[in-house]
């Protein structure tokens, strides 16, 4: 149902216009592979071994009928020493092993290693979402969770790439992925992002996602420190269409290792259906084949969770659940899980959050395999699930739940300095190597830019020419290190050299390896996940916990006091003890204890003095006289209003709290009653205070007041203002003095 079709009633026309209705939803259709789990065409799990121990049947297919994917899995992907035991385990028994915190990760992995794709898929398909979470918390390889960022832009602008890479590193990302709208620009992107990352932090891994052979070549030249998009597919046809085989991918995988470069493979549910070659199988079963292949090939890790086909999975029932199950399956095979949450799978903010949240809460080796740290329009992979506009959201959600999603708050001044340095470094290196000369204007625009639309000076030829020179003159990362060193960027030179030297040690080739900011390797080997129930597993260090909690928006009472003090004025003059009046046209305005002392600004943004002057003007319009007194014994608005009314010649009083809430009271009413009440202080404005004054005047004269329209707002009033209210009430309480009487104030407007 799209929003253009007419609907008979307004409620549904309104619903049709909501962003979730831009998403595509498919009726389950197993024939097309549009089914998340357990298609009728999924094979029955089976494993039959011949007399010399080799596989003669796997998942109901005889070895003589194996396609190349079956063949490779059967030959290399199964631990035949446990296969009989593993295949005999019931689906539910294994599912329970996954969920039960008392069963070790090692034990789960031991069984999974002997399971065929159909077996593992069928068993994991039994897990409910909450159980997937428990499984994930236990099964991921590395104890400390991390996160990956996309850093790209429409112009392949090297300066902006560097600034944004430094920014991403400042926000805590430990891997950065770049790619190119123009393939030939690739080496320039790799270098610019690597320099920016090195400015931002020690030990940030950088990849440039392009075609397989080109990416390996760049790796060999040191231009990237890892690779990820070595793609695997679940059907033979789609594999061949991708111009590879399991054997060529195996060679590629070993090629990276032979140079000491970290890599992982990429798969993801829905890709086969998307390419029309799912063979009627479920997405989860086909992904099980990919994951089995990844293990068989000898990759250390997998990027999956739908990836580019996440929306296809999302279109069918249970599809989002299958995306999380894919990550759990990777972990169960003792592989690093880079958990998707990258390609945008919904137009709805609500829905895309729901897709990621369970994984953030459970924790993965990488919560996302591509947080778009730049703006959507600059994300050359297409918009991500999470983009620059969501960084504060993500930080807040980490804090809300008390979980580590890999990100931290970055100080604005610090980021500005890093961006400048990153841009300066790239400019210096590109000039030194004869790649390009950037204008001062381009530099300044790139530093300040929120995106490439802000960099009018950039031109598309610059990265193209730079990349061509890099290629033709055989520039390697060693040349970049030298250039950084010779142009005065010694820190960055040593960070990039350090990353190159890590290839020699080989420690970061192990499963789930990242570098922390002291350049320690955190991996399955050095930082193994030991979750075994409450009180165990990863706990953020105190420093890290502070990073998570100290978001830039949080305010202390001291901050609020400072905000208030800015509006201090000297309009209030203490006259003396307030006495009862006798003028029948007099209306007394009672203000709260902190007024004229520490509270000067109401929640609506009007100053207290402005609110007061409107009240007084309203009274004057009705031919009445206003007198201002300050109540010290209580901060309660009803009581303040009543005390004012009792002093008032007309018997009518106005109560006004420093935060802006106000009411009209009368001397004979009980404290909690009133003639009119403005309770939502943030929604008030000058005209409403004026009207309150007018109405108080009319009450004093016995005339009919004018009804005030309650200000309407669909703002999340509580979320916006409650913390301020708590602080303001605290300030009021400081000034409450039961022994002080009511003071009369002269207000000099």
């Amino acid at each position, binding site marked *: 149902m799209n929003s253009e079709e007419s609907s008979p009633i307004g409620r549904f026309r309104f619903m049709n216009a909501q962003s979730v209705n831009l998403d595509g939803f498919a009726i389950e259709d197993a024939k097309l592979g549009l089914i998340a789990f357990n298609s009728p065409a999924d094979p029955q799990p089976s494993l039959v071994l011949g007399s010399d121990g080799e596989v003669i049947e796997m998942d109901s297919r005889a070895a003589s009928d194996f396609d190349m994917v079956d063949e490779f899995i059967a030959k290399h992907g199964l631990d035949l020493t446990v296969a009989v035991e593993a295949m005999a385990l019931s689906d539910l028994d294994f599912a329970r092993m996954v969920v039960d915190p008392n069963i070790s990760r090692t034990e789960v992995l031991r069984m999974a290693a002997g399971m065929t794709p159909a077996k593992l898929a069928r068993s994991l398909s039994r897990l409910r979402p909450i159980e997937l979470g428990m499984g994930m918390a236990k099964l991921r390889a590395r104890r400390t969770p991390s996160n990956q960022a996309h850093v790209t832009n429409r112009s392949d602008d090297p300066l902006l790439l560097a600034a944004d890479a430094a920014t991403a590193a400042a926000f805590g990302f430990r891997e950065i992925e770049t790619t190119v709208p123009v393939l030939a620009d690739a080496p320039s992107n790799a270098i610019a992002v690597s320099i920016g990352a090195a400015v931002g932090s020690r030990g940030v891994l950088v990849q440039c996602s392009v075609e397989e052979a080109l990416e390996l*070549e760049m790796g060999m030249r040191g231009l990237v420190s890892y690779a990820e998009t070595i793609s695997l597919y679940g059907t033979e046809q789609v594999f061949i269409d991708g111009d590879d085989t399991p054997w*060529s991918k*195996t060679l590629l995988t*070993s090629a990276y*290792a032979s140079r000491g470069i970290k890599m992982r493979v990429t798969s993801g549910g829905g890709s086969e259906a998307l390419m029309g070659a799912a063979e009627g199988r479920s997405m989860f079963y086909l992904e099980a084949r990919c994951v089995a292949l990844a293990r068989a*090939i000898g990759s250390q890790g997998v990027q999956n969770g739908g990836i580019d086909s996440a929306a296809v999975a999302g279109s069918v029932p249970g599809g989002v659940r299958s995306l999380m199950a894919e990550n759990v399956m990777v972990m169960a095979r003792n592989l690093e899980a880079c958990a998707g949450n990258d390609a945008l799978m919904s137009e709805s903010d609500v829905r895309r959050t729901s897709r990621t949240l369970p994984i953030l809460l459970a924790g993965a080796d990488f919560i996302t395999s591509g947080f778009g740290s730049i703006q959507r329009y600059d994300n050359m992979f297409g918009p991500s699930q999470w983009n620059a506009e969501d960084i504060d959201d993500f930080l807040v959600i980490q804090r809300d739940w008390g979980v580590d999603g890999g990100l931290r708050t970055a100080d604005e001044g610090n980021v500005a300095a890093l961006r400048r340095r990153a841009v300066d470094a790239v400019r210096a290196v590109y000039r030194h190597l004869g790649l390009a000369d950037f204008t001062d204007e381009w530099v300044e625009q790139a530093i300040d830019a929120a995106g490439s639309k802000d960099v009018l000076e950039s031109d598309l030829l610059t990265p193209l020419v730079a990349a061509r020179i890099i290629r033709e003159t055989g520039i390697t990362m*060693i040349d970049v290190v030298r250039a950084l060193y010779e142009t005065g960027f010694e820190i960055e030179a040593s960070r990039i050299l350090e990353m190159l030297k890590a290839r020699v040690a080989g420690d970061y080739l192990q499963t789930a390896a990242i570098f922390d900011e002291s350049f320690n390797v955190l991996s399955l080997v050095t930082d193994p996940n030991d979750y075994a129930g409450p009180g165990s597993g990863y706990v953020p260090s105190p420093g890290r916990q502070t990073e998570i909690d100290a978001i830039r928006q949080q305010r202390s009472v001291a901050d609020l006091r400072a905000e208030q003090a800015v509006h201090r004025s000297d309009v209030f003059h203490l006259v003396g003890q307030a006495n009862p009046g006798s003028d029948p046209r007099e209306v007394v305005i009672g203000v709260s204890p902190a007024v004229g002392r520490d509270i000067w600004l109401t929640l609506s943004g009007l100053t207290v003095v402005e609110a007061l002057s409107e009240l007084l003007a309203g009274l004057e319009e009705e031919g009445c006289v206003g007198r201002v007194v300050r109540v010290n014994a209580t901060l309660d608005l009803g009581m303040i209003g009543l005390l004012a009314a009792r002093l008032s010649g007309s018997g009518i009083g106005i109560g006004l709290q420093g935060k802006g809430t106000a009411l009209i009271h009368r001397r004979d009413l009980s404290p909690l009653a009133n003639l009119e009440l403005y309770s939502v202080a943030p929604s008030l404005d000058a005209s409403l205070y004026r009207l309150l004054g007018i109405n108080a005047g009319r009450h004093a004269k016995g005339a009919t007041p004018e009804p005030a329209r309650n200000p309407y707002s669909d703002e999340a009033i509580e979320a916006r203002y409650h913390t301020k209210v708590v602080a303001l009430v605290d300030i009021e309480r400081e000034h409450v003095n039961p022994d002080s009487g009511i003071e009369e104030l002269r207000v000099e407007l």
Partner: protein
Amino acid sequence: MSRVGASGRDLSEVTLEAVRENEVVMADLSIHSDTLEHQAKVAQAHDNPQLAANFRRAAELTALTDEEVLALYESLRPHRSTGEELDATARSLEGRGAVLVAALFREAAEVYARRGLLRH
């Protein structure tokens, strides 16, 4: 062992000064086959025999140039090589001591023939 690059150079010599003096090449920053063998044992000890096998194949590939490695990759892609070419590559690799990679090629030759992935 893990302080020595494929070139045989110790990492302690790979300094910024050495880079500036043009004394450092990519082979100094490449992993040595002995280190890959060590990492293979670590992988094995952490319940990943396939990762270990990957590292051992990689150890054999350290002896090949970048161009040779890239050419090996190309030759294994669909419809790039005839069966004879794949077998010849296997023999050549065996001759250079790269028996694990050679086995990969022999296996590919056999499967590709069956699945129609050879060049004709």
